[in-house]
């Protein structure tokens, strides 16, 4: 990816494309009020299936009770849309975890490949783009929805290994996108330029003085070029001062120092990433985000919940193992708690340049690669939607008739203004976008 960007970078016509962003500030500072409300979309992922009995509400419609796992969202029940009956019907190569993960957002088969899972044929990467990237590309193609990054891919405790279990976002066939698990790296990506600018500003005075000193060493004939050079430095100083006055709507969050990317820090890393995510939305750096907790077959050991077993091992335990069921419920509830933190933040942050709160225009999709851990089923994949988007009537629990998840992706695309007719495997799109209004 890096090399690809580098090439585009070098090929960029003229120089301004390369040099300007840092000089004239961030392309989109979100200062002007947008023509229409900004619609945002977040996919949050947690792995290894759920405990259905502790997850799915019993009732359908608007009057339903949250079970244990969703209980952290109690205050946001009227902002929730629970979708039972959504199936990942993509078949083909790869075990259920692999297909669960790499077909989750792509809705299309994996290539045959060299990665052997716990069953099925060995497989490679997904053979198509994921819906988050598809929507991002659409938004970036339009002047009024283009943002600096378009999409941001956050990770929390994703292992540093590239395979179909660790990637859900794809820029295209065979083009997985690695989420950024290190909040400091994400911070650098989002705000590094500001810091560069600050550092640059701190040295320009010395540069000017140096040019003056050097000017005295050379002949009058040669001084002209140095004088022009000095004028350029002054100009740069002024430009930086000017752009500094365009303040960011929200200052970058202050991150705790030295939080290493390791298991026991997951709770802190999660909050840091969520803070950065919300901040990037306030500053309108992206309209689409993914937030990936660990990976399919993730083995987080949630010591902070007093659970010593690895998540994936636990998920294989039979339904009769009450201890395992209790622990898995706790684990999934913890993930829901992180979702609640995100929802809470968005619900209390005013929509920049608009009315209401950011949650009104942000739809979060919490999902999972499996319906249930010990059966590895791709039926009844947990799909919980929170927030708001055009065409989605929230505050409901629905039981759908074994619909494909491709149709949900179509509905999400339509809500974001991208009126796709099919997505992923076309045969799985019969019936068109789910009607969730």
């Amino acid at each position, binding site marked *: 990816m*890096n*090399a*690809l960007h*580098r*090439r585009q*970078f*070098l090929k*960029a016509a*003229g*120089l*301004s494309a*390369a*040099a*300007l962003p*840092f*000089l004239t500030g961030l392309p989109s500072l979100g200062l002007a009020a947008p023509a229409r409300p900004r619609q945002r979309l977040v996919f949050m992922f947690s792995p290894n299936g759920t405990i259905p009995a502790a997850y799915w509400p019993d009732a359908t419609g608007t009057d339903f009770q949250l079970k244990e796992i969703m209980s952290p969202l109690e205050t946001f029940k009227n902002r929730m849309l629970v979708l039972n009956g959504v199936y990942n019907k993509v078949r083909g190569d790869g075990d259920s975890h692999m297909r669960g993960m790499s077909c989750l957002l792509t809705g299309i088969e994996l*290539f*045959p*490949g*060299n*990665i*052997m899972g716990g069953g099925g*044929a*060995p497989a*490679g*990467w997904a053979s198509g783009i994921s819906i988050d990237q598809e929507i991002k590309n659409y938004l970036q193609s339009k002047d009024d929805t283009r943002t600096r990054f378009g999409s941001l891919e956050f990770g929390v405790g994703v292992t540093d290994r*590239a*395979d*179909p279990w660790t990637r859900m976002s794809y820029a295209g066939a*065979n083009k*997985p996108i690695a989420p950024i698990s290190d909040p400091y790296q994400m911070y650098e990506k989002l705000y*590094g330029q500001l*810091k*560069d600018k600050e*550092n*640059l500003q*701190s*040295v320009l005075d*010395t*540069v000017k003085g*140096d*040019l003056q000193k*050097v000017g005295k*060493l*050379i*002949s009058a*004939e*040669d001084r002209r*070029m*140095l004088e*022009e*050079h000095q004028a*350029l*430095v002054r*100009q*740069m100083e002024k430009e930086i001062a000017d752009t500094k006055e365009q303040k960011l709507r929200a200052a970058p969050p202050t991150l705790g120092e030295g939080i290493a990317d390791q298991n026991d820090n997951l709770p802190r890393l999660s909050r840091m990433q969520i803070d950065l995510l919300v901040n990037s939305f306030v500053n309108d750096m992206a309209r689409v985000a993914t937030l990936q907790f660990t990976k399919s077959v993730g083995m987080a050991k949630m010591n902070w919940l007093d659970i010593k077993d690895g998540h994936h091992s636990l998920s294989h335990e039979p339904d009769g193992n009450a201890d395992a069921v209790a622990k898995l419920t706790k684990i999934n509830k913890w993930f829901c708690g992180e979702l609640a933190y995100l929802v809470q933040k968005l619900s209390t942050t005013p929509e920049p340049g608009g009315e209401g709160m950011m949650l009104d225009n942000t739809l979060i999709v919490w999902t999972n690669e499996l319906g249930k851990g010990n059966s590895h089923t791709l039926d009844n994949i947990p799909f919980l939607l929170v927030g708001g988007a055009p065409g989605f009537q929230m505050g409901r629990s629905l039981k759908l008739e074994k619909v494909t998840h491709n149709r949900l992706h179509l509905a999400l695309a339509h809500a974001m203004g991208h009126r796709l007719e099919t997505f992923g495997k076309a045969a799985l799109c019969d019936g068109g976008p789910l009607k969730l209004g």
Partner: protein
Amino acid sequence: MTPFVLQSRSTLPSPSAQRQGALAAWLLLSLWLSSTTHAASFSFFSRKPDGPATYRSQCAKCHGPAGEGVKGKYNDPLVGDWSIEKLTRYIAKTMPEDKPGSCTGPNAEAVSRYVHDTFYSREARARNKPARVELVRLTNRQHLLAVADLFRAPGEEPKISTGKGLQALTYKSRNMRREDKAPDRTDLKIDFDFGAKRPDWAGEGTNGFAIQWSGSVLADESGDYEFVVKTANGVRLWVNDDEKPLIDGSVSSFKGVEHTATLRLIGGRAYPLKMEFFKTSRDPLANVTLLWRPPHGAQQVIPARNLAPERAATTFIISTPFPADDSSVGYERGVSVSKEWDEAVTHVAIEVATYVARNLDRLTRSKPADKDRTAKVEAFCAELVTRAFRRPLTDEQKNLFVTLPLRSATKPEDGVKRVMLLTLKSPRFLYLGIESEHPDDFVVAERLSFGMWDSLPNSTLTKAATEGRLHTREQVTEQARRMLADSRSRGKMQYFLHRWLQMHHIEDLTKDQGLYPGFTPEIIGDLRTSLNLFLDDVVWSESSDYRRLLLEDDFFVNARLAKFYGIKTNAGEEFIRTELDPKQRSGVVTHPYLLAAFSYSKTSSPVHRGVFLTRNIVGRSLRPPPMAVAFKDGDFKPGMSMREKVTELTRPQACQSCHGVINPLGFSLENYDAVGRFREKDGNRTVDAAADYTTDDGAIVHFKGARDIAEFAVKSDHAHNAFIEQLFSQVVKQPMPAYGLDVLNQLHLSFVQSGYNIQKLLVDIVTVSALQGTGTPVSTPKKKT
């Protein structure tokens, strides 16, 4: 290639002047564009010839009082390289324009001598406007190389034996564990198709197999390299970065995946390369190929001559694009600054600062928790700033550039970033010869390294400067000679050669596929390689003989080229030297790459070829043509030869003063078609490559073909001088006359005495430029020739 258009200048004269100008078009010299038709004022011809008076009364109104030109009349300054005799003949024959033949004999000679000696000739121009060594900033190439060498490990370069291929560690299972090892070996290239079976070396086994290659890859030219790995299995490739893979294809697809990634590399240098390949038990097939598409080349398996088993050190290469340098005088020079340039410089400074901050532990050999971290960071910064400024820091400078910025930031990473920003934006890094009013040994070291390498002095050179060992001419020459062995000198030499032969402009050599089937991108890429190999072979041989560049009759060919050009050779995929028919080939002017470059898509172009030969090989100056004339093949009667068409097109007297020189040279190459194949016929017509060439002194030389031009050039002082001047300006990037009016003669004498040794000439040139203004005489006592 764009069609050859005789470009009109931006400031067009008025229509009437243009019409008159058309008559006098493209003259090396044109006088008296007078609108008065009276001839009465020529009565003074009866008096004693008075050059200045004649010029003032008759020439100045069109040519200006000092030959500077008059807008709307004759725009151009009256400058050129004709001798007084030739000028006299020309004036006698054509001037004044409204009454040719009225100024002849002693009168013509008097005005010609006046014009020649007052402002026309090179000597006159040098006298009137003494050239000087100007303050210059780094050119873009120098900037790129200097930043790269800022992080270069001190000491001599590791030996890299290209041509040997890569070291290969093989394993009998996909896990590259020691207990699974199969015998080590070297592979000349990576291009394997194992099919569905296990290769013999992998023995029996059920867990696949693996290979790990390592070594270096040598970039021939600077530019973007597209690396391509084709495989049905797992691969990872690292190039010029030991940590982050350029290509991570651990997850494979049975269908076979083509992984591509592009990397900017500096030519003439080697870069570390590592590749891992593994086949799992489930993969039905196993195959792997490592290819690249080099700049100006076609996609190909990376050949053995670009691979070496030893590992080179990594090179830091900036990715910031720069606005093009001024090259209006024929070579790139840093004589102006612009906002775009300043922004690029700043962007580079940020790129470098980010790199240093990220790699601070490795670069300072310390950890954040170390007690001596602060001291180590400070020492590292001081060393880097010293290297960037090419001289020891004073206490005040150390405080300003290192101590203060480090202390001004709360985090050490930011402090280091500030040091780097300050350093790379400082005029002490960006300009050359800042303290050259009294050049000391450090200035001499800087001139040596930028002359030989376009880059920073290395530790040996800095040491010599510190110890005061760059004082005498012998010491300086000795350093320059030592520096020849460094690969950076080859890079610089290639930079010059590509400009001399105009190869740096060549992008697309595609020809009409109906007329030249088989002239594929692969052939074009091979031709460039063939020419590069030839140039390197001649220049870096011991004799380094300029004459061989023009006279050799053997070229490097591989099987593919041999087949296309009908050459008998044993060559396979690799290039070998192959002798050709000396009647058909004579050095670079007959290399098919250049012949194809100076051709149209369907036909040869005697004008392109002739202009190239005139300017770059025989060393005559040409003015830009005053009007645009496009060559349109359809304008001519069918069946005419190219020679006939060009003759027809350039027949007007106005064209002839330049085309009289250009055409005979171009026609001498008519034995080569648009792809550089030798031919006897042009269409149905037998090729006539014989032509009479008029030298600058007016002598007539009969050329029968390409070899005659080459023979003529190697014996011509004019051609030698042109070669010396071009090398000088590409190397030093300052006007040669600024180093003394006698420099050219001195260099020429030495060039001839050395047997036209190009390496020696480079050393001489760099020595002259390094000692400028130091008080050390550069001239050697003249020997009798």
